[in-house]
């Protein structure tokens, strides 16, 4: 006879979601440390936390190969980590230090790690959409079987590249998955107030790109939706996924977000994707203590990354002149 405390039978892929939980905890802890570091003036430029949106990044990227490609936004820490970038070079980049992914030249809004197929965050809303179409175009030209995922926000769908990039992907039937993270806001503006019509999925459908919508704070739901779509996109044509979520912090780490009621934010915290996933795993029999330990380990890892980044020196000043261009290199002539 089984002991009384035997966990309920579950066919959840526990390994998979434990890994997803761990990754979400790492992203959360990274951003919590980054926000603290911004207050300490270690992070110098603007950062846009994705706290509350981790399940979208992890659920989608968990279905990609290392060789697959993503393009991200100004709110890109989660995407970047979920695609396999490491915390320390990311933290160093946020601090503008030596050993940052972009040699300290880009900062949070321009983080990229081409070695894991992360072709860059972007400071210009919507600019990544056409670039993503081109990346997918190259995969098609080279006859490869890779997939491109393009993340963007609900505010970006009002920029011209949304129409142009989706049409392009449709015309050339490119292997691209568009992921619209609908967090309800574009900076201080409720996106619904500035968006006509039925929203991103309807627009994609109108362009002939099949679209679906998923509860973005449910890791399992995002994972299952993304798995199906990535399979369809690989070697096939474009697909569009809307992930409904919420930005739990301000637009940037220095935005107190006074333009929305505290009660609204508090209510949204009850749908925290990390807590949702923790409950899912606990219900599947993973001991609470083990899940707490995963979270603590993630926090310890990110505290260490912060400390180590803070202890790292500045990049060599000569780098200011490096990697501008080959012909007419400013190291030869900058004036």
């Amino acid at each position: 006879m089984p002991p009384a405390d035997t966990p309920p039978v579950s066919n959840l892929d526990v390994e998979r979601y434990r890994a997803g939980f761990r990754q979400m905890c790492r992203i959360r802890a990274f951003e919590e440390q980054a926000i603290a570091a911004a207050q300490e003036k270690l992070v110098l430029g603007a950062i846009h936390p994705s706290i509350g949106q981790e399940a979208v990044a992890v659920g989608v990227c968990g279905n990609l190969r290392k060789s697959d490609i993503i393009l991200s936004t100004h709110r890109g820490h989660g995407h970047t980590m979920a695609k396999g970038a490491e915390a320390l070079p990311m933290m160093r980049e946020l601090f503008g230090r030596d050993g940052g992914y972009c040699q300290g030249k880009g900062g949070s809004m321009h983080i990229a790690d081409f070695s894991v197929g992360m072709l860059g965050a972007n400071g210009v809303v919507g600019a990544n959409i056409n670039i993503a179409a081109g990346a997918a175009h190259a995969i098609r030209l080279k006859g490869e079987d890779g997939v491109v995922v393009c993340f963007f926000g609900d505010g970006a769908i009002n920029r011209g590249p949304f129409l142009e990039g989706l049409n392009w992907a449709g015309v050339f039937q490119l292997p691209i998955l568009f992921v619209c993270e609908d967090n309800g806001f574009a900076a201080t503006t409720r996106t619904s107030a500035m968006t006509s019509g039925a929203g991103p999925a309807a627009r994609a459908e109108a362009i002939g790109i099949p679209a679906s919508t998923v509860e973005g704070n449910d890791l399992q739901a995002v994972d299952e939706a993304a798995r199906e779509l990535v399979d369809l996109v690989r070697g096939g044509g474009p697909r569009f996924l809307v992930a409904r979520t919420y930005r739990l912090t301000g637009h940037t780490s220095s935005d107190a977000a006074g333009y929305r009621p505290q009660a609204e934010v508090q209510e949204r915290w009850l749908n925290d994707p990390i807590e949702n996933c923790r409950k899912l795993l606990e219900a599947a029999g993973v001991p609470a203590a083990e899940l707490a330990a995963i979270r603590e380990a993630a926090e310890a890892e990110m505290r260490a990354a912060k400390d180590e980044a803070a202890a790292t020196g500045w990049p060599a000043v000569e780098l200011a002149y490096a990697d501008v261009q080959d012909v007419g290199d400013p190291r030869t002539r900058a004036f």
Partner: protein
Amino acid sequence: MPRLSYLEAGKLALAEEMRRDPLVWAVGEDLGRGGVFGQYRGLAEEFGPARISDAPISESCIMGAAVGAAMMGTRPVVEMRFSDFALCAVDELVNQAAKARYMFGGQSHVPLVVREPIGIWRSSAAQHSQSLEAWYAHIPGLVVVVPSTPADNRALLKAAIRCDDPVVYMEHKNLWALEGEVPEAAEPGELGKARVVRAGGDVTIVSWSAAVHTCAAAAESLAGAGIEAEVLDLRTLWPWDREAVLASVERSGRLLVVQEAVSVAGFGAEIAASVAEALHGALKAPVRRLGAPRIPISYAPPLEDKVRVTEAMVVEAVRSMTAAAA
């Protein structure tokens, strides 16, 4: 005279013009909550959401719609929040707004103002720090304004709004908090008139926007060493006050142009060339320019600092120019 910040002075100018003329209105992202830097705080409460209008993230349509609305007789003030993002609307500004009056044989004016904050703002990196004023000075049909003080931000924004031409109005992000005296009189300034920041007869330093303050500080320390620099703040790049610059250089015999923007093909080249053409015989030293190297702007402070023109650099340039002639 009341003291106002550069940001408050700009806000006051807009509010005054909106009170005066019901056809003046502003449009841009997040304006209802005061705009990204707070330049519109409180204006939606006074003028309502139709005249302090929010916009979707649609820069090309914000600018394009402003062109249409200007052709129909309203006076839109377009907010682009960073001059870098205004690049998403260059067709609407350069191909449409700037040329409509001419192409259509004078049937229409396009009295819009596009506010495009420029400049280095610590660790904002390559897509949020640029000074692109020279691009627009190159385009026939556009007026380009680059205020450096609170008083000018009030007077010149008012002038820009009343101007019947499309005006690219470039405030410097690092000046938002700068305080200064702003005259009570609510008269608009004159577009195309330089300001003598400091008089002096040994060298003429021509500058605009935030770099003016660097030059003024340098001139003070040069005065301590017995070199009297005249500092001119151009205030507008098109039209630029050629007469004032030529008159000053004629007296001093020396010209230094100081700009935050990339020096190569920057507006300083235009001034330097004009002076060299007109005053060749009067020059006691070769014309000099200081500006940024032709590199993108970095995030890391020590790298970012490589594009800054400092007070020490201005002092050094003037010393070498005055020494050369001695």
